[in-house]
């Protein structure tokens, strides 16, 4: 009986403590009560007003090319279609010439494999030695003044190129100098007739690439293949566009300056959307992926990825979310080197897309939509 009398109060205490602990752990949704404290400044902190703003690109945008060589495709082309002219570039590998350097070259044949056996087109072309080393970053061609003559045609420089003809003669002494390691940078096969609207293509796959068949005075023969990754199609757009253009094959990009100077460096960037208006009909088929990057410095080819998107020919605009880049630009203006837009794939095929630039009508200029909040304040 005495034990029970002592136990009961203690049990009540325990139950009461547990009940208070359990029932105390509750919370309600955040309430607007107390906002007067914030407005009155007594709490002393201010998260900052959320607002939206638009930055329109009004000047300073431009196109630029980082390379005019399509080198990754499985074919090489020469000719002209529409406003695109193509030149075939070939550089052969003479590194393992060995004893061939002691021999005299008597005949040389450039062997090409057509992609379409049924193509009946023919082109008037010339073969030129390249003065600059063939690479996939060339933006211009520097060629010898004189074309390579055709020994099989009395040394004529003009040649007829067609699918029916897969072998073209080159001057033996010229090739012998290449074998002797006396400056082979490559060959450019260029269309001669400016009015042509035809194009021929040749295979450039792993097992089917152009090669030089060299015959020596001792009746021996060597086949020299393309130096790895040293063949490609040099692409030229004949009609420069006044619009902003991205292109593949020719690695064309465009630069947009972004003026954020009016924003407080301490502002929080909640969202930043870059909108570009697509020029109707300007997008040619191919991969639609586009990326945007923030140049790491004034050298606009070096980059930090800022956003990605895709071109939808059915849509009139493309939008990029570039929040992190814009936040960095606002917080640290010295990091603001603008934005650059390009195709994600730049070495896949010859294609392009155009966008309206800063000179376009007000609704078509590139612009940046921002959602920000004022710098927070803690006194």
């Amino acid at each position: 009986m005495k034990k029970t009398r002592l136990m009961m109060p203690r049990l009540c205490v325990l139950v009461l403590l547990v009940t208070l602990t359990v029932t105390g752990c509750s919370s309600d949704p955040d309430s607007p009560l107390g906002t007067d404290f914030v407005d009155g400044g007594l709490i002393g902190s201010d998260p900052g007003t959320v607002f939206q703003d638009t930055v329109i690109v009004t000047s300073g945008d431009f196109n630029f090319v980082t390379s005019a060589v399509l080198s990754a495709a499985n074919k090489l082309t020469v000719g002209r279609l529409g406003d695109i002219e193509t030149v075939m570039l070939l550089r052969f590998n003479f590194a393992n010439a060995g004893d061939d350097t002691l021999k005299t070259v008597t005949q040389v044949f450039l062997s090409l494999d057509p992609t379409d056996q049924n193509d009946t087109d023919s082109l008037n072309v010339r073969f030129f030695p390249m003065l600059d080393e063939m690479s996939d970053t060339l933006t211009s061609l520097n060629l010898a003044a004189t074309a390579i003559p055709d020994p099989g045609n009395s040394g004529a420089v003009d040649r007829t190129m067609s699918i029916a003809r897969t072998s073209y003669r080159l001057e033996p002494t010229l090739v012998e100098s290449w074998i002797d390691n006396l400056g082979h940078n490559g060959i450019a096969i260029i269309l001669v007739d400016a009015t042509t609207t035809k194009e021929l293509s040749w295979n450039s796959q792993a097992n089917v690439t152009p090669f030089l068949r060299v015959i020596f005075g001792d009746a021996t023969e060597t086949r020299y293949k393309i130096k790895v990754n040293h063949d490609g199609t040099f692409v030229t757009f004949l009609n420069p566009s006044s619009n902003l253009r991205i292109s593949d094959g020719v690695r064309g990009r465009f630069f947009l300056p972004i003026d954020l100077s009016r924003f407080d460096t301490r502002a929080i960037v909640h969202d930043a959307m870059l909108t570009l208006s697509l020029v109707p009909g300007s997008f040619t088929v191919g991969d639609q992926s586009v990326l945007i990057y923030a140049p790491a410095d004034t050298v606009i080819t070096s980059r930090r990825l800022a956003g990605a998107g895709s071109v939808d020919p059915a849509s009139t605009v493309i939008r990029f979310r570039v929040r992190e880049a814009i936040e960095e630009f606002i917080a640290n203006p010295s990091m603001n080197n603008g934005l650059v837009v390009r195709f994600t794939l730049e070495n896949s095929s010859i294609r392009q897309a155009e966008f309206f630039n800063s000179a376009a009508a007000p609704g078509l200029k590139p612009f940046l939509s921002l959602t920000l909040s004022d710098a927070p304040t803690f006194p």
Partner: protein
Amino acid sequence: MLTTLPATAWTTSLFSLNFLGEKLEAGDARSIALGGSTQLLQDSLGVLLLNPALMARLPRVTVGTGQFLAIDEGRSTDVTEQDISFTFSSFRAAFPLTPNVTFSIGYRGRYDPDGSIGTRDSTAAGDPFTTTFFRSGGLFSVPLTASFNLTRYASVGLTFSFEQGFVEDRFEIVFDNGAITQGAGLKKEELSGNGYAAGVVLYPSDNLMLGAMWESSIDYDTDIQERFTQSVLDTFYTSTMRLPSSASFGVTWRSAGSFLVAGSAAFRDFDDFEGLAFPVDRLGREESYSFGAEYSRGVPIRGRRFPLRLSFNYQKLPFDHPLGQDIKKFLIGFGTGISLSGGRGKLDLAFQAGKIGSISDNGLEDRVFRVYIGISGSEAWTRKREDF
């Protein structure tokens, strides 16, 4: 980069969102039921009483703890919101070293700033978002007290305390559209300092107690950390905060029968406050006046007698809202208790109901209901003295 933080704040009172927060009552539930921690009470188990001189008359090693459950209903002209929370407010252990000297160590909360407010809005483009402000933290003290019986008519107590605390303000801006990045900011101030206190209680007669207590100002060293979504804004620096000194006075009269009445007043002049970047022109004197009565014989229930306690407490908060308008706190308290273990322990319950602020004067008010529970127990490690 700071984005969002888990919501951990809770509200004990709407006005706890402001300044240092709500002033915590550190006494046990008996003193709360009688008006507050500044009341002078002669209690052999009153280890949680505030005046350090009162420890001198504890007969045995005594340990006590106090907590409270708060049910607060915040009101404005448009919105009513209820919050429930639980707070651990005090703990103390007292050790009589000699017949006239007692040492104690404990913990007590001083101020509790907790709560959150949120608003809904949308951008011009129609993106809805919620802005939420959170405040949390608290100031607390670890007092080391030595209490002395000078004569049968007077006791004194001296306290050295380790003062700690933190105040954390943070906000979040969260958009309904998950693709839009949230924003957040946080400012955390960690405070540390030391304080002193002294108390005296006079016993001119068996029925009368007079007492006073003084707490020194506390100079806190403050480490401040600010973090934002924009990490380049993050910063760390040091500062100071000064909590002004306070004084309290009390008188208690006990009848020859079973009645007891107690009254006290306490003041802390926040004109001397420094720190926290609070606008000094909004600060004034913090005041508290308490009156309580107890029928210690109580009412019999199932063979046990439960004392009856009733009190009234008026406080003026140290800041105004809006500018120039005082904030007043009115509390009615009542309570009872039960003796445990043949008098070696006790359980006290106190209930407070009241109002802080008013809609007509301040635009905001809190209707509060608090349940305090205090538990104390003692052991006769040494037989100390005859009870006074």
